[in-house]
């Protein structure tokens, strides 16, 4: 990692300062426990099915069940140590204002515990991945807040302007000037990214990239005054946050997917969130989003119409 240290706290974004404080608080609590002669503990909400609720708010979220891990419990000792290592590493990323993926994090922590020990801090990435989730849940933050990047996949076009503060620079992104490829939605649209202007009546999310390209070519977003987005299949975290931000601005969200199980699943994940990310359901779900497209009953109802038959022949 490059030596790119910035002056402490000066010019640090408030989001970063908040994440730093949470991590530091976690450590302080444990040191206090150790000073008091007891085992350090780590409390985190349970993420298992038994603690996932779907309630009247219309999205999946975690219940109140928590688990307290103790370093002195042999079954949890290794995980405990690993959790603190991850937390400390994340703190370092934020301080130095650097970003990496969860895979990058794993590689930075994959080293031996000591010359005389035949054991590494991490043996497999699956070990560190869950700990990132643990910390997200326990500290009420997203991994993006800890400078962890995720896959970018979604693409956007439409009448929207965003300011991206990144790498020490500010760039303005114009959603109408992204040509045939559109603007690739980054993994984090919350930290250092703001909507400068927005001029649209609704958001159309189309499952398939091919369709998006078709509609983009037709400048559909201009004709319809819409934001045209494709997640290219299942939505990435960044795409979901982007759509949610637009929904928070009052835009109706229409999700156009195939009329099959996969299509419905894509729609429902956007709408209600997923079991895996139930702990982030509040920030990721869009309960008001609506499905648009052909349904099973449409087939029965409209097969006799000329229009429908022509459509089906397309």
């Amino acid at each position, binding site marked *: 990692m490059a030596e790119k240290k910035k002056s402490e706290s000066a010019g640090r974004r408030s989001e970063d300062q908040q994440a730093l404080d949470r*991590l*530091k608080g*976690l*450590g*302080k609590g*444990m*040191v206090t426990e*150790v*000073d008091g*002669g*007891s*085992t*350090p503990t780590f409390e985190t909400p349970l993420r298992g099915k038994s603690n996932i609720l779907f309630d009247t708010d219309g999205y999946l979220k975690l219940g109140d069940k928590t688990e307290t891990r103790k*370093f*002195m419990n*042999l079954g949890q*000792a*290794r995980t*405990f*140590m690993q959790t*603190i*290592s991850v*937390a*400390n590493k994340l*703190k370092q990323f934020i301080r130095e204002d650097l970003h990496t993926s969860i895979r990058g994090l794993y590689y930075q922590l994959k080293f031996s*515990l*000591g010359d005389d*020990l035949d*054991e590494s*801090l991490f043996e497999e990435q699956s070990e560190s991945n869950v700990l990132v989730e643990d910390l997200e849940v326990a500290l009420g933050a997203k991994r993006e807040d800890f400078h962890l990047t995720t896959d970018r996949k979604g693409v956007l076009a439409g009448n929207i302007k965003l300011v991206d503060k990144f790498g020490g620079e500010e760039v303005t992104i114009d959603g109408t000037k992204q040509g045939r490829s559109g603007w690739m939605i980054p993994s984090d649209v919350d930290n250092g990214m703001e909507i400068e202007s927005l001029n649209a009546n609704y958001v159309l999310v189309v499952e398939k990239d091919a369709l998006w390209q078709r509609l983009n070519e037709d400048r559909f977003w201009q004709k319809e005054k819409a934001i045209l987005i494709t997640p290219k299949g299942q939505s990435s975290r960044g795409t979901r946050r982007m759509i949610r931000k637009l929904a928070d601005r009052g835009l109706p969200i229409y999700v156009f997917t195939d009329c099959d199980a996969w299509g419905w699943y894509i729609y429902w994940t956007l709408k209600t969130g997923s079991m895996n990310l139930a702990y982030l359901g509040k920030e990721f779900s869009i309960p008001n989003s609506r499905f648009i497209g052909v349904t099973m009953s449409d087939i029965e109802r409209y097969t006799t119409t000329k229009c429908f038959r022509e459509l089906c022949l397309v």
Partner: protein
Amino acid sequence: MDPNQPSIPANSDIGTQRDTHKDFKEHSVAEFFKKNKHMLGFSGKTRSLTTIIHEYVTNSLDACDEHGILPNIKVEIIEIGEEKYRIVVSDNGPGMPKNIIGKALGKMLAGTKFHRYMQQRGQQGIGATGCTMYAQITTGQPFHVLSAHNGKMLSCDIKVNLKTNEPDMVIIGEQEASYHGLTVEAEFGDVKFDKSSYGVLEYLKKTAIANPHAQIELVAPGNEYYKFSRSIEIAPKKPKEVKPHPLGISVYDLQAMAHSSKEPKLSGFLVDSFSRFSPQKISELKEIIDVDFSKSPKELSWEDSEKLVKAIQKLKWIAPPLDSVIPIGKDQIEKSMKNILDPEFINVVERDIKIYSGGIPFAVEVGIGFGGKINEQKGEIYRYANRTPLMFDASGCAIANAIKEIEWKRYNIDMETDPAVIFVNISSVHIPYVGAGKQAISDIEEVQQEIKNAIMEAARGIKISLGRKRKVGDMEKKKTALLRYISRLSEDLANLAETGSKDDIQKKLTKIIETKYMTNMVGEEEAKPESSGAGEGEENGGEKEE
């Protein structure tokens, strides 16, 4: 059946075979023995040698015990030819008076034990003479005896007259002696020394375990020296002399006893030789069997002997006294197992005296040793009757049966793979042996069940020890596992919290871990139910040697 039978040495001065055919009536017990020596343990070369050593060591131990002497026994085996050995067994016992030596070592069924019933190791009075005879028929050489008794040291040679069952004794010398003890020396052919589980070394080791008050040395061929040192300094209680109880007698023993009796009538022999045998009982017997009680006991046939034993079982008898049973003692067994086997865990169980066949008292003692210096990767069974190891015929033995019946899994012991020794001793004036070879305990239900119960009780203790060991091991493992993580954790924690130093946190964490696992281990120790014998077991050794 017996490969040695036709090979009577040419130079033997006993009667020729034709002589014995001529006069069938003079067919002595010795002659009978010669033809049936396999019955007495002389079958197989290794086994024959073990039998010989057994006879002398047993006699020495019994003699010492009777006189309250702590035995020192030395066995020397010198190879002098192919399957030919000189054997010297010496002890520090009382020695033997001149007038008895001949009979004791050269006349069948004339031992000191035969007419005096008490709980002793040897019980048939046939063994020592059998050895004399075996030496004689395999090498033609007499037995050499040195007996230091009552201030006199006697040196003599002894042979058995196979025809008359009378000893031929040649006195070589006599002198003053300030010590006591007996040394027998003889050459044997058709025997073999090896270190198999039936061999002499194994036999002596097992003997030493059951006789913690004895010191036993062995000089094996090739000048290999072994010593089994004394585990306790107290001689066992002297056995009480009792007449045999009718319920404990076997057909073979009854016939043998009858044949050596001097009573003119069978009825007199029975009343005189057995406890609780009154003339009233004779008349009761007369009512149920057709045996002539007025004829000489010397003429008691096998059939009549069999009838008598069966009929005796049908009558009611007053039980023999319980104090005739003398077990080795829990503490004693524990010490000798520790001394000789040195296992990691020992659990010894001494059970109360029980009764079999409606009146014969017996006691079972079991010791289980596990791990430590026992490195045989399989469960071994050490069978004993009155402290004497039973080396052969394990398959039909009640002890082996009982062990087979036990579900060892329940005790976390695997008899196929675990380093365990199961020591089982049965004490009784009448050990229910199988056959005249006296190498197996008969599978009488009460006896076998009692053995099984005793072994299971002992196994429970071992199970607890094993469980505790695994727990303590787990504790240690846990502690180590935690300690290996604290360096990393302390460093990260100090950095994360931005308070405290790595060293400080590490010191405190170490202390927390050590306190936690120390407390638990101490708790484990306190919960220990005991097993290392706090010596509360009854004191068995009465008098100390002067």
